[in-house]
């Protein structure tokens, strides 16, 4: 089980993947907003999205788990 953690504090403004989707390393999976800037979060490795732990509008902290992959 692998997780994608948030690289920064911010608000989720876009979720670009869905459960069951195959993703590749460096794919953009989520867009976070902080200071009115959009920051993409990238997949650290290949995998399949198992669980999406956030929704649009949620405020996340640095290190918070956004996505669980397998």
């Amino acid at each position: 089980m692998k997780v994608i953690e948030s690289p920064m504090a911010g608000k989720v403004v876009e979720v670009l993947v869905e459960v069951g989707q195959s993703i590749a390393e460096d794919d953009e999976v989520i867009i976070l907003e902080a200071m009115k800037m959009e920051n993409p979060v990238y997949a650290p490795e290949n995998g399949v999205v198992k669980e999406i732990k956030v929704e649009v509008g949620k405020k996340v902290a640095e290190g918070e788990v956004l996505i669980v992959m397998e």
Partner: protein
Amino acid sequence: MKASSNKPDSESIRPELAEMYRRYSYGLDENRPDVVEKRKKTNQRTARANVEDICDPGSFVEYGALAIAAQRGRRSEEDLRARTPADGIITGIGSVNGSEFGPEKSRCVILAYDYSVLAGTQGYFNHRKKDRMLRIAYEECLPLILFAEGGGGRPGDVDADGPNGVFVAGLDCTTFAMFGGYSGKAPIVGIVSGRCFAGNAALLGCCDVIIAAKNANIGMGGPVMIEGGGLGVFAPEEVGPVDVQTKSGVIDILVEDDAEAVAIAKKYLSYFQGKIDNWEAPDQKKLRKLIPENRRRVYDMRLVIKTLADVDSFLEIKKDFGLGMITGFIRIEGQPFGVIANNCKYQAGAIEAEGADKAARLMQICNAHGLPILSLCDTPGFMVGPDIETRGQVRHVCRMFVNGAHATVPYFTVVTRRGYGLGAMAMAKGGFTQCPIVAWPTGEFGGMGLEGFVKKGYEKQLNAIEDPVEREALYNKLLDQQYARGKAVNMAAYLEIDAVIDPAETRNWLMKGMESAMARPKPEGKRNFIDTW
């Protein structure tokens, strides 16, 4: 009687020459295998190995190698020769990067503390050696390279401060005043691995740049001083380790070990030694796509710098401090530049106290040593709010105005995206057209954040509208107008910037600017010192 031959045998070594070699032999690594072994265990090299590595082969001329610790009052001279060769510091003049820059530009003063001698502490004779080399440096304006490892002032030099010695506290030592006084005269490069405390750290802290290996501990006091001050008992490793000192901004460049420290020190020095002939430009057309079309999307400014600059020519300093500002050195067509750039990934690139300090200091380094400055601007302005004010924001950011205004080196500003408010002016040497300034077509400008400008500037008209949908529509219409006005091409039409350029033409623009800047008469007068912060 047969006359004895009076032709001297030039091959034989007479006793006094042999004795000279014997005296020098104590300090050579090949005769100190236990020291070499010990250094290997801590993943460090001996002082002599570091000096050998940084200097061009055969170029090092040593001064004061025969000094021994001022402890004749309690130890035999043979013992001191064996255990305290060179009184714990290798000093001399060597050439660094000579093959690239020739003999005149490559001569440097080298000061390398030897931790294997009394923990690299500063004793009576080693202070005098440093002062001797500093006098030479002052006379000849030579760059200075300091390997600063060591424990600071040395108790136990009984000849100096023992009961029959001629010192009480030694506070009239001239080294720190001379070292501090040298700031700005020529590049001063500080290198550290292992433990660097007290007097050794005091010298390190005066250097232009601090290059530290991962195993470094840097502190104004080591465990002895700390315990002596009643502040507790700490192991050396707990005092100023690199994760503290990178984040605090003390360390400029973190490296793996001694070997990498030397390589980076040579690279750092090279920016101050002149242009190089061998360079390669990345594909400049890539710059046209690096700024996202979505104006709120972050991008990697370091990638912009690396794409603009000659291949492999970007050396960043203080990477882990003041994260909203990137500072460092690059080359363009072999010409060195200092560079400051906003990092939109951190607080949208707003300028905070720490970032402003980095930028101001970079300006000082460039101004002192004659390096042109490139400013890559993408900032929504100075950071604001009650929080940032607790960090002295007003004073720190204004350093950019004062230092920018006093910089006499060529200064160029390229706005890659956002140029808003006082922050953008600070990036541009204090105000647009104080220096040549261009924007890429993605440039957008305003006196302040445009959303706030419209909300406040049109408050009456907006509040007069009852229907929220209608109000929103007017707000958006006014906002669009402001963004249209603030586009780079419009800024240029009103002459607030000099031109809008194709990103792929940025290098050409800079080099043409250098040609005319270099034709200017050099400013006379005292060169500024480089403040330590």
